[in-house]
């Protein structure tokens, strides 16, 4: 198989596009400028998908977490935390690579040719920790403690940062509703600036939002080292040629850390491995029992 065919990512992109369409298939919402209000909204989708997107059928787990944590009567969320534990422990960051609509957008933008794409830069390692701080501060602490007279906290990550909300919810709803156009102010402008910066950066840097900002990726990454779906390296087959590390756009070396928290399970490393030393473990637990 030639190299171009081997490294083709469109199989994964097709899954991403299909999932993005399925989870945002309330097309009447786009026509009417309204959102879906059916019972499916009780359920969370695994990726970052704004529930105020006119097409969204499910709830965004980050928004849902802030809603419960910021509510006057709960403050702790077992439902959303349990959902994130379930998805994270089962798949790790597979969702980031295969099922997140905002990840898809960044993937596609990175295909735009640019003279000097940036892989690693000074400060990259430090910035990767930023998403954990954002999760703790904007998703948990601020909605929990900065509350109004009724004891309700705002979803501060959605309000001040989330570019997915601006792109999937803010832009279509404001375009489709005259009333909303009259209500936009500095916050809307700020969120649009942030969105544009992230989209432009996505052309130069691979998935900057996922690497440095996304609180959902931060949560899933905590489960990655123990996730049921995992990568393994057959050390007998590995020739240490470095092809997998070179192919990884998240700058992980799969030979040293096949289940690194930054890996989004895109599978490029597996594709480029000339000896087939990298593999998934699904359905191979018995084989593992013998080998480990």
């Amino acid at each position, binding site marked *: 198989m030639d190299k171009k065919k081997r490294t083709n990512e469109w199989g994964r992109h097709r899954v991403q596009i299909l999932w993005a369409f399925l989870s945002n298939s309330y097309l009447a919402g786009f026509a009417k400028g309204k959102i*879906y*209000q059916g019972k499916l*909204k*009780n359920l969370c989708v695994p990726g970052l998908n*704004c*529930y*105020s997107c006119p097409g969204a059928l*499910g*709830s965004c787990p980050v*928004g*849902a977490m802030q*809603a*419960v944590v910021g509510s006057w009567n*709960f403050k702790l*969320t*077992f*439902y*959303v*935390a*349990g*959902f994130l*534990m*379930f998805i*994270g*422990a089962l798949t790790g960051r597979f969702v980031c690579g295969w099922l997140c609509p905002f990840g898809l957008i960044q993937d596609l933008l990175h295909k735009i040719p640019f003279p000097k794409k940036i*892989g*690693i830069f000074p400060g*990259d*390692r430090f910035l990767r920790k930023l998403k954990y701080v954002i999760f703790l501060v904007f998703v948990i602490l601020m909605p929990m403690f900065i509350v109004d007279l009724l004891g309700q906290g705002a*979803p501060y990550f*959605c*309000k001040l940062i989330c570019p997915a*909300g601006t792109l999937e*919810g*803010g832009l279509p*709803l*404001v375009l489709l509703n005259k009333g909303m156009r009259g*209500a*936009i102010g500095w916050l*809307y402008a*700020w*969120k*649009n600036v942030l969105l544009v910066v992230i989209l432009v950066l996505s052309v130069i840097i691979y998935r900057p939002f996922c690497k440095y900002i996304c609180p959902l990726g931060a949560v899933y990454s905590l489960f990655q*080292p*123990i*996730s*049921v779906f*995992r990568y*393994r390296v057959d050390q007998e087959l590995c020739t240490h040629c470095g092809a997998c590390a070179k192919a990884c756009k998240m*700058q992980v*070396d799969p030979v*040293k*850390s*096949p*289940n*690194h928290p930054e890996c989004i399970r895109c599978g490029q490393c597996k594709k480029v491995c000339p000896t087939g030393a990298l593999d998934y*473990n699904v359905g191979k637990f018995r084989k*593992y*029992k013998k080998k*480990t």
Partner: protein
Amino acid sequence: MKEKNKKDRVFPELPDRTAMKIGIGITILGLICMAFGIWRGEMAVVFEKAVNICMECIGIG
């Protein structure tokens, strides 16, 4: 520089069998937490937030 950073990015790996056992345990714990959260009525809060346009999310509120 690039090579140096890649070398730095080593993450301690658990044996596969141990990691999978922990993963399965947390998956089950996640399901139990979800059920408990639904039982105490958290789903209604999520639903109420999700079926109304979230003004903060879209940058208006």
